[in-house]
């Protein structure tokens, strides 16, 4: 057990080291060793930067290497790495929160009412067929270049995913469990609170994990198309200067933001669904 665990860790670190080494020096080595036409373009630092350059860009964008000092650098640049990260994180969070809250509410209501489900069904299917990205320019037109349009974009992406899962989860609730609750004295609302919601929660969470990634995608795309701040904006600026290493910095930070949000959702999930075997707290 511990043996295989160390083996896994060893191979993970070995792969990481290999990737970093090839990324850093692969281009020079292949230029020295291979005939001219055979040097792989994918290793060219002009396109993919390289670890040392990315590190330098990180220090510069992060205001660690500025002659004027950290505080002055932060003040002087209103889309510095930290502010950009904060803005993107904040918009992703709110978009995710509003999107999943409204998705859960709509899914519960339509899941419990056959009438409403039939009335709204076709509209929801139709709206869901629109590629959400196509709506982003419209959203920016309506809500402007600020945070609101990014939150709205994330909302659009998150809502339907969470809605469909909550709806299915609500439909899948065991009818006998509902009957049992009613016979034990539960009102319609108490049934919703104590049976339908806990029972649908597993379905809801199955959608929240992808939803948090979708929210991040929504915000970044919004920032690509029209924004004043944020990590997406940072990438667009770097692209204008053909600066691959700055783009890479933003991409890595996004990765960490994504991981952070996923961990937050996962820990909430394993707490709320601790009655399910796969989330049983390991002692």
């Amino acid at each position, binding site marked *: 057990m511990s043996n295989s665990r160390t083996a896994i860790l060893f191979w993970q670190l070995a792969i990481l080291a290999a990737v970093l080494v090839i990324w850093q020096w692969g281009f020079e080595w292949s230029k020295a060793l291979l005939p001219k036409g055979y040097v792989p373009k994918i290793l060219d630092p002009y396109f993919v930067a390289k670890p040392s350059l990315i590190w330098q860009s990180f220090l510069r964008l992060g205001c660690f290497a500025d002659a004027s000092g950290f505080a002055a650098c932060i003040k002087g640049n209103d889309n510095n790495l930290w502010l950009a990260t904060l803005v993107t994180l904040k918009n992703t969070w709110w978009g995710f929160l509003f999107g999943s809250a409204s998705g859960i509410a709509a899914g519960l209501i339509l899941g419990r009412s056959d009438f409403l489900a039939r009335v709204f069904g076709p509209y929801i299917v139709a709206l869901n067929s629109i590629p959400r990205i196509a709506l982003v320019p419209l959203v920016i037109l309506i809500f402007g270049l600020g945070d609101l349009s990014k939150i709205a974009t994330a909302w659009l992406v998150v809502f339907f995913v969470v809605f469909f899962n909550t709806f299915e989860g609500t439909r899948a609730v065991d009818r006998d*469990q509902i*009957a*049992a*609750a009613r*016979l*034990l004295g539960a009102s319609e609302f108490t049934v919703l609170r*104590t*049976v339908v919601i806990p*029972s649908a929660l597993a379905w809801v969470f199955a959608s929240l994990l992808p939803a948090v990634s979708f929210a991040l995608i929504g915000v970044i795309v919004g920032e690509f198309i029209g924004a004043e701040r944020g990590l997406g904006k940072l990438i667009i600026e770097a692209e204008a200067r053909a600066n691959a290493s700055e783009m890479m910095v933003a991409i890595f930070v996004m990765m960490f933001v994504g991981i952070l949000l996923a961990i937050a959702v996962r820990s909430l999930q394993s707490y709320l669904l601790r*009655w399910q075997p796969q989330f049983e707290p390991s002692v």
Partner: protein
Amino acid sequence: MIAAPGQGRALARDEDQTAAARTRIAVQGLAKRFNASGREFVAVDDVSFEVKQGEFVALLGPSGCGKSTILNMVAGLLPRSGGRIFIDDDTVEIGKVNPRVGYVFQRDTLFPWRTVEQNIGYGLEIARLPKTARAGRVASAVEKAGLAGFAQSFPRMLSGGMRQRVALMRTLILEPEILLMDEPFGALDTHTKLEMHKTLLEIWERERQTVLFVTHDLGEALTLASRIILLSARPGRLKEDFDVAIPRPRDPVAVRETAEFGRLYSHIWHSLGEEFRRTRAD
């Protein structure tokens, strides 16, 4: 929502008094028709019977004869196609829960996200009984179910028999005067089933609820019931009505050696056999 201790319960301490006791459940000319793929078929046809205060009545019949359908109509879970049902003097209405009536399902209907304790305390909790007032009753119910030490466990950690005991206690903690049970031990193995019979007999012989118990298991009906109502194969009709004069307290193993058990067993067996043959002939 909490049932007041029944005045009637005290009245009928002695089984011999049941003849004079008041009627708790009255079923008159009950019928149920289902629409199966456009074709109407009769599941229950003109069933009438009464259950008196403190009686333990088993509704016995082959599978598919309409026992659950009858019970669900009595519980107000299913609309009826004809006839009338009274609990005490009130007509049973769909969706109107009678706090004096408790129901135990055959299928496992425990809430898997609640612990044993939270499952048993469910009815008290939603009735807004304060936590301190609940704790004692829940603890003693857990104890009575023989589940001390499992109070904090989730249902999936329990065996089938333990789960059914939790389900029983979840209903009994509300002190229903009338108990409707739909093959509650149908999914258990023989040994566990006998243990459950013992538990149920102990509780019933002490508290004397009015019980309508659905089963297809003749031995189970004879072990538990004071009266057996035998249903015909589909469509469910009343076939025969027996008193089970085995003295109490009963032991689920010892009852099988009584003369009465043997006599009724072979009589009902033949009667039931005709119905099983009719079921197969369909």
